């Protein structure tokens, strides 16, 4: 009995330690416009085109491709608000500051929720996109997006 309890205790300590040590990401010094391009979130079911707004230093993102563009009834996919998901702008109002794109929001067309969002560039072909409930990014979820190119 004591052996199992010790094993569980050790595993808890190991996981907790991993939680605080495994979060390191190698980052370079990106340029503001390097974020412009076509990106695929980790689920692999959509492409997001990130672009710069005309006449402003603001970046936004638009859903330009869906692996399954239609819902189960065969109609074009819509978000809970009723808007079409394809060509929807789901990243808004990012500015480039301190090597990251910040002050923006991300809209999740599945849940219909909009979250605070910060984007970091892990390397030229990978983004770490973090959506959060709070403006400080304390409670949120990060996703790795990969850059897409023409075959």
């Amino acid at each position, binding site marked *: *009995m004591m052996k*199992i*309890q010790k094993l*569980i*205790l050790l*595993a*808890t300590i190991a*996981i*907790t330690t*991993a*939680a*605080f040590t*495994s*979060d390191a990401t190698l980052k370079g010094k990106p340029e503001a416009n390097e974020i412009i391009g*076509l990106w*695929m979130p*980790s*689920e*692999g079911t959509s*492409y997001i085109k990130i*672009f*710069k*707004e*005309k*006449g402003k230093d603001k970046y*936004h993102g638009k859903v*330009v*491709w869906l692996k399954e563009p239609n819902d*189960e009834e065969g109609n074009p996919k819509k978000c*809970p608000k009723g*808007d079409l998901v394809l060509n929807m*702008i789901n990243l*808004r109002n990012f500015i480039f500051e301190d090597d990251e794109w910040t002050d923006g*929001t991300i*809209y999740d067309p*599945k*849940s*219909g*929720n*909009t*979250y*605070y969002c910060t984007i970091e560039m892990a*390397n030229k*072909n*990978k983004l770490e996109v973090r959506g959060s*409930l*709070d403006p400080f990014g304390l*409670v*949120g*979820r*990060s*996703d*790795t*997006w*990969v*850059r*897409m*190119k*023409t*075959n």
Partner: protein
Amino acid sequence: MYLLRVLLLIAVFIPFTLVAQDDPPIEEEEDETSIDYSNMVQTTKNKAFCSSRILGQAPIKLAFVGYDFQTGHSLEAQPFIAGGAQSEQSITNAHGARLGLSYPVISKNYFLLNLGFNYAKTRYSFHSAQNASSNPLNQSLANNGLRTMGLTATAFKPLNSKHYLIVQLGANLNGDYSFTNFQSFSYTRYTAAAIYGIKANDRKIWGFGISRTYLGGALNYVPVYYMLYTAKSKKWGLEMLLPARFNYRRNINEKNLLLVGWEVEGNTFRINNDGNVYGLLYNNIELRRAELRLRASWEHALTSQIWLSMQAGYRYNWSFDADRGDFYRPFGDDTPYLVETTLTNPAYFNISINWVSP
């Protein structure tokens, strides 16, 4: 009333609100509309991983403050010492505060780790405090009530876009202790669970596993079945971790959910006999508490992240017996406990304010 005021104040002053987004049109600096997006490849390998959530599921509780109240019932307990008198007591009510926290320490697409804390106190009000002193169990419940505090670590590891693993580890300190007369950590009880599963689509995730649990009142190893499901209409769904809990979910609208189902609550609680205050020959008595809560709950969004939960139901007693030490007891084991009790079944109510991840 005081607790209700506190709950409402928390609801009003918690500053987090999801972002309200207006959608003005945005003009691109360079518009390239002629790209064939069906002919694209990844510049670098990025493995696809399934997420732990499905469409329409009940919001995940990150923190809650609640209050639990059981109506009047009775407790009939055998004597602890041979030749002692059997005791039957009327309990006016059993009530107490409940708190919980769950923080996503790591929340990446390839790994999620949540650390949680939970606390619950149950106070027992006996109809006659004088008579309650005739039995050590009644005396302990009347004087100290029961308290539980615990930590959990829950890891969700997606293996690919379809398959995942969940591992949960827990440590709980349960007993009749107070903060001024704290219980030794040597009485910590450890739980664990592991589930392997499949995310079938955005509306269904399920899995099988095994758990080391005290939910039945004593240590047991139980197979578990996990499923979250939302119907195609998105108007209803099922949320379960069998046999511990089951909920039929009715999505009334974005701000209101109705849940109907059950939850098993249980653990083993140390009854402290330091200094032989109860005049017994031993100091390792543990109360084997397990109960089935059949209930309906209404979940209402006060704001996008603050939800009110109101629950009412029937508390069915499975075990409220006492025995010595910590031991394994599988379902179907009918070995009599040292002290067996009959606890009748009251209605119960629970209200909580929850900070949720919508």
